[in-house]
């Protein structure tokens, strides 16, 4: 009898938990859309500036999200550009070259890196910038370059892990095919193994993009500012969407600005969801081990 009660309780409990989580999240999203849908229009992004003029960089946007969106875009492109070559090369090294001992050590290091709180990486980036400023060049301070490098540290483990997993998942017979035909190790990697892992690596890259677009803690320490206009150079400060949302949430001046915050949240949410679904579509059953990120 006691067991029956336990079993029934389990069922009720499970449904209840599902309900709570779903209602929690739908409340979150519902509230966001309820509050923010009214602000979703072109002037949210471009303010009073004609969109075309803004996109062609002919005219500046002051009241809209355009500089923040552009800043996020540039930031993501830069970070990914740093992370991809290192990430893929390291993934290849781990999967194809590293001996078991080396691999154990490197694996542990990347595990630690992938579990690192992003604020710690931000702090590292910030103090590194200050360090460079003091000892190297007056021109360097917290800026786009530093932010993108710090962000690339943040997402490097994603790309390493997906590359490594994709390569290691290739069955032995395929691995041996080209080798038996006289391929060198490098030929095998680039002509057979990498082409077969493209989807895995791509999904890792897209996740990394999502991560870069979403992160706030790193950029608030390394160069994102309240107002900067479009980023001009690697050494300039910039605006970014997630930082904008954070900024608005704590210091909106009036309800209009607050509405912008809701709008920005919805835009960011859509952006991330889109990236996420794309990554998922590219590679179904993508492990969330890769998603994990404090």
């Amino acid at each position, binding site marked *: 009898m006691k067991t029956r009660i336990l079993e029934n309780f389990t069922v009720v409990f499970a449904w209840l938990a599902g309900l709570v*989580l779903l209602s929690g999240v739908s409340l*979150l999203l519902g509230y966001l859309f309820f509050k923010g849908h009214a602000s979703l229009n072109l002037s949210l992004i471009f303010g009073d500036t004609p969109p075309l003029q803004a996109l062609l960089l002919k005219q500046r946007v002051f009241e809209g999200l355009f500089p923040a969106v552009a800043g996020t875009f540039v930031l993501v492109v830069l970070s990914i550009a740093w992370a991809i070559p290192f990430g893929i*090369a390291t993934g290849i090294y781990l999967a194809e070259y590293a001996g078991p001992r080396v691999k154990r050590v490197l694996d542990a290091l990347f595990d*630690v890196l992938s579990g690192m709180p992003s604020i710690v990486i931000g702090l590292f980036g910030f*103090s590194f910038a200050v360090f460079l400023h003091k000892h190297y060049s007056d021109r360097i301070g917290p800026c786009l370059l530093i932010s993108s490098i710090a962000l690339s540290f943040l997402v490097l483990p994603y790309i390493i892990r997906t590359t490594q997993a994709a390569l290691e998942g290739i069955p032995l017979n395929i691995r041996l095919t080209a080798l038996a035909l006289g391929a*060198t190790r*490098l030929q095998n990697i680039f002509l057979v193994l990498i082409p077969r892992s493209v989807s895995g690596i791509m999904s890792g890259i897209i996740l990394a993009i999502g991560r870069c677009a979403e992160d706030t803690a790193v950029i608030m320490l390394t160069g994102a500012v309240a107002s900067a206009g479009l980023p001009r150079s690697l050494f300039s400060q910039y605006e970014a969407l997630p930082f904008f949302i954070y900024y608005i949430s704590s210091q909106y001046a009036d309800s209009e600005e607050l509405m912008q915050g809701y709008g920005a949240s919805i835009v960011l*949410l859509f952006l991330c969801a889109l990236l996420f679904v794309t990554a998922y579509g590219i590679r179904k059953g993508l492990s969330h081990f890769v998603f994990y990120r*404090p």
Partner: protein
Amino acid sequence: MKKIGELVAERTFLLSALASSSITVAILAFMVFMGLPLMKQAGFYQLLVKPWAPYQGSFGIYPMIVGTGCISFLSLVVAFPLSLGCSFLIATIAPKPVSKGLRRLIELMTGIPTVIYGFVGIFLLVPYIRELFRSGSGLCVLTAALVLGIMITPTMTLFFCDSFDRIPRSYLTAAEALGASRTQKLLYVILPCAKKGMLNGVILALGRAVGDTLVALMLAGNSVRVPGSVLEPARTLTAHIALVIAADYESPEFRSIFACGVVLYLFTMMVTFLVRYLSFAEGRRD
């Protein structure tokens, strides 16, 4: 000719692996290096147990450690039952289509940006908590923990589901053939077998809760005091870094955030090695 190409490539891969992995080491080195003057002066241990009162010259991060502990523990208290329940639903209890849909949805939820949780939390949950308990400002440990709990639930649920999936099919078939209902299968076979994997999920989720900055910064109130109840404000290590980074670079305030960095770093390392150890133990058992 070709040999050289091979060698160059291998060296390149090796170098980039070394460069990438040196980041992990470099971060620790930097934290220690920057925090060293203060740690030397006050002693690392002293920093860990003293309060934060910059005007009295005390730069301890004890309140932040306690704040971090409270908020992340409480968020686990929120997230654990939710994740357990949701993973039960997905594993056996819900009908196939529902369970599939739920799983997709939860996977998608892991992609919601953190700042959005914080943003909605401020305007939705904070006033609600304030009026519900008629005490405090609503910016408190409880609010932060609730939002954080919801935030880490998807990750934890997926880890649970994962450890359920790893149970050998034969165990499940055995139970089914003996007339176990879905719930019984879950309670008497799946759950006992998946314990270790689930512990992994909990530890990783804890790591995530401790490492999160935005939710605590936006919702916990950031007061530099050991919270006396869940309705009082508190500051986490991560939020402390974000707040004090503005201070004078040479000041002990600024140095103290590197102590926070070191603590967070060591915690991450602990989580990582614990998880690795557990996975290793699990791998060996099979």
